[in-house]
């Protein structure tokens, strides 16, 4: 009976999957995660990506570099595409570059990075340095990190996009900061992506930003879906409600991810992890059934009571 209450998202996503997405999934993928189109382009992106904040900042430690590349291998094997990083994340870019080289630069990769400098003149050289760290010919997406010097950097990114040096451009925030300014940018600037914090407890984006993103055809990347792991840690002492089992959620991590990616404006959530089993668990959240509005409310209410 409950299945009938939450088929809308699944149906629309499955329909889109049947077309363009199938051809764009990596050849080595053993599963095909649910995906959504990027704005008006029709390009499909799996609903779960891979963040790199903290987890891939491992320096020159060979053991940890190899462990990170194992995580990336499992991510691509599970049908993942988007990996997100930033020059702010220590050695994460170089770790990604190491993993991509080791994996033979998977075709499925959707590379997302950021420009993070208060100096307008340093934006271009920083993006080029980041590209070199990744070892990719160009980024699929470059975002202005945390709105830092965003006017100058957006101008640069628009020029790069026009010249064919980047496919998509965007802007990011996190922790719910500067939402009013972000809203103004989304309403006035020609951006393809916005990245923001959204999870079962941090839901301010539902009020204005997510509806505006849908209205403007802006793809949405969600960071901190687990509040950097604290949500999973806190909830782990409570029982997972049995009424989410039919969605396929078998853990709190999958419960939390399904809540995030079931919002129709969300294009991709980017949990970070340093463990292979966790990346597989995260990717599995982008399968099965996505909660509908009623179930999403029940999920939020349940967590709110804990």
């Amino acid at each position, binding site marked *: 009976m409950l299945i009938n209450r939450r088929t809308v998202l699944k149906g629309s996503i499955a329909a889109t999957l049947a077309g363009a997405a199938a051809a764009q999934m990596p050849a080595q993928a053993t599963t095909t995660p649910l995906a959504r189109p990027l704005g008006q382009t029709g390009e499909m992106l799996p609903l779960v990506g891979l963040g790199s904040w903290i987890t891939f900042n491992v320096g020159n430690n060979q053991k940890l570099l190899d462990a990170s590349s194992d995580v990336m291998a499992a991510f691509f094997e599970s049908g993942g595409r988007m990996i997100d990083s930033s020059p702010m994340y*220590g050695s994460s870019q170089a770790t990604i570059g190491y993993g991509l080289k080791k994996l033979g630069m998977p075709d499925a990769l959707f590379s997302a990075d950021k420009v993070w400098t208060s100096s307008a003149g340093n934006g271009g050289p920083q993006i080029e340095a980041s590209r070199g760290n990744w070892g990719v010919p160009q980024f699929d997406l470059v975002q202005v990190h945390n709105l830092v010097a965003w006017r100058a950097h957006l101008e640069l990114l628009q020029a790069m996009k026009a010249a064919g040096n980047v496919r998509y451009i965007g802007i990011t925030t996190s922790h719910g900061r500067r939402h009013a300014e972000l809203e103004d940018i989304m309403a006035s600037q020609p951006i393809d992506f916005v990245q923001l914090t959204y999870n079962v407890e941090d839901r301010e984006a539902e009020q204005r930003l997510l509806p505006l993103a849908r209205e403007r055809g802006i793809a949405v990347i969600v960071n901190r879906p687990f509040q950097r792991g604290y949500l999973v840690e806190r909830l782990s002492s409570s029982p997972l409600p049995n009424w989410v089992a039919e969605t396929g959620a078998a853990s709190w991590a999958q419960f939390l991810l399904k809540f995030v990616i079931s919002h129709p404006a969300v294009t991709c959530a980017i949990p970070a992890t340093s463990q292979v089993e966790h990346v597989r668990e995260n990717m599995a959240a982008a399968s099965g059934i996505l909660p509908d509005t009623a179930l999403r409310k029940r999920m939020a209410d349940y967590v709110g009571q804990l």
Partner: protein
Amino acid sequence: MAEWSSYSLHDLLLFSLQAYIGLFELLNTTLWPAHLVTLALGLAAATLVLKGHRARHRLVWTLLSILWLWTGWHFFHVQYAAINWAAEYVAVVFWLQGLLFGLFAMVPKCPQISYVGTVTDRMAAAVYLFALIGYPIASLALGRSSESVEFLGISADSGVVATLAILVLSRARFIWLAWVVPLAWCALTGLTLWLLGSPEFFIAPLAAVLAVAAAASYITGPDSLPDK
């Protein structure tokens, strides 16, 4: 300013405890057997001071200068900066501290370093011995693997604690300037380990508190000596 207040201390951490511990594994692997050299130099400095060797003042300040310059370059600039871009700034601070100790070694009125066996001196000696040998043992006892424990001259913490012990023995009142960076580092490394969830977070701050307590008796008590 309002935006900075929305960050928690945890948000300022760029790396995991696993990556931080991995840093010391890498250091120990790549620098071995330099540990034996730094241990020998540390023991030599202690012997010079205990024996009251005439050249001890300039030699010990010189060794401390080298220790801080080396730590700033290799630990912070070469290794730690790979996971923490802020380490580049700390490297500069360590270099400045190293230059200050170099200045101490060169000036005509070289700050004196003396061990005369008072209770305060013994406290300083205990802190120094802890920096030399006790630090890795304490880390092991608190769960660190043998491959990742920290040694004097290889990473920063034990060298900073050893420096504090020497500063206690230096007694000169104007030398307070040289305390600022070591004490700040002990606080910072303790905070870092605490945020990372490491049980070792209290070691360096506790050693710093002991050193300050020992120094306070020199400054305020009958052991106080004039600057030379």
